[in-house]
């Protein structure tokens, strides 16, 4: 039984295809979705989503956070933003990270929601830099 996988961001439907396994970066660690699993709803951290078919990597993309809905026959990824690995840029991500760090210093300790959202964004920017570096070194196995 194949697993129907959709990746949708607010801007577009990035992909919609049938695969054997999807590995997503969950907030508390990577999780694989396979056909027949019990339903799970998951918050994402910034990282790489990998789609597998016949033990081969079919597609990889970078998401900056969002939610995943896994059921027995499909896996729906609602990403805050999604990009192909080739489109990542170390410089842009570094710039974003600097801006976020700057914002972080100005946020008061009692603004809990804002702090939480900033820390998620900082994590996503760090992950983007890391992944972009690996793509540059052509070290895709390490992702």
């Amino acid at each position, binding site marked *: 039984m194949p697993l129907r996988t*959709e990746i*949708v*961001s*607010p*801007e*577009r*439907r990035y992909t919609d295809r049938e695969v054997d396994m999807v590995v997503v970066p*969950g*907030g*508390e660690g990577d*999780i694989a979705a396979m056909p027949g699993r*019990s*339903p*799970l*709803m*998951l*918050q994402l951290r910034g990282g790489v989503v990998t789609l597998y078919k016949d033990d081969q990597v079919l597609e990889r993309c970078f998401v900056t956070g969002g*939610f995943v*809905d896994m*059921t*027995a*026959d*499909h896996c*729906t990824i*609602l990403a805050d933003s999604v990009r192909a690995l080739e489109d990542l840029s170390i410089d842009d991500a570094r710039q974003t990270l600097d801006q976020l760090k700057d914002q972080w210093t100005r946020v008061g300790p009692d603004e809990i929601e804002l702090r939480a959202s900033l820390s998620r964004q900082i994590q996503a920017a760090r992950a983007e830099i890391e992944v972009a570096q690996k793509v540059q070194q052509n070290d895709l196995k390490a992702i």
Partner: protein
Amino acid sequence: MPSLKELRGRISGVKSTRKITSAMKMVAASKLRRAQNQAEAARPYAETMQRMMSELATASQGMDPSTLPPLLAGTGKDDVHLLVILTSDRGLAGGFNANIIRTARQQIEELKAKGRTVRLLPVGRKGAEIFRRYYPDMIVDSLHNNSGTQQTAYALAQDLAKRVGDLVEAGEIDACSLLRNRFVNAMTQLPQSLALVPLPVAENDNTVHERADGAVYEFEPDEGQLLAQLLPRNLLVQFYAAILESAAGEQGARMTAMDNASRNASKAIERLSLRYNRTRQANITNELIEIISGAEAV
């Protein structure tokens, strides 16, 4: 019979009206393209989110509603119903506002007949004016629409989501639906109602029934934390998509209405010109007859 001078005045009046309507049509057409792109881009995300939410609602059906967040399962009562109605700020858009207002009034009457208390939150000046006249005591507040450019649409959606979220949390409303024109194409806008709180359960959705019965959703991080993020997010996304759809629908409706108006103006001009020429010819003939009969008498 109007005099020649009167007819000339009328023709030039209709001509200047046609200039205005055709200019408005051009403006609406160019705004439509952008609005349509934005609305169509936002649609898959909102629809996927909606599907995910109805799955969640279906899965949590057997659970005790008091343990679930009110944005998911409602407050446990079904007394106060909030309708958020999206209209435009500006008129001259054909039946765009009238259609959605008619649908809203039907729904209000139905809810009243069932003995529910109805609260209204009209968005857009046109709707606010009408509802303030007919149902002044139901209005919670009214907001401006600003015709849904992308930034203002997002800010408006955030505002709406926060208000609705707060009202539900405070227990002031038990259910909430959103009424908006769904953009089909430039000619057609469908007034539709979308239930937001409590989340509607999926109907006849095969994908849901295929799942092992009784399987309960697991959540990571824990249920409370995840749903506290996801549910307000869903409201925001649904409002945002609806505002963009409505904005595209407004431009489409205006374009069609103004196209019709320009065409009608052209027809009116043709009719008036014909009448003008006839009147002029009749006058000339009259004068000739007078001259000839005068000459004959001499």
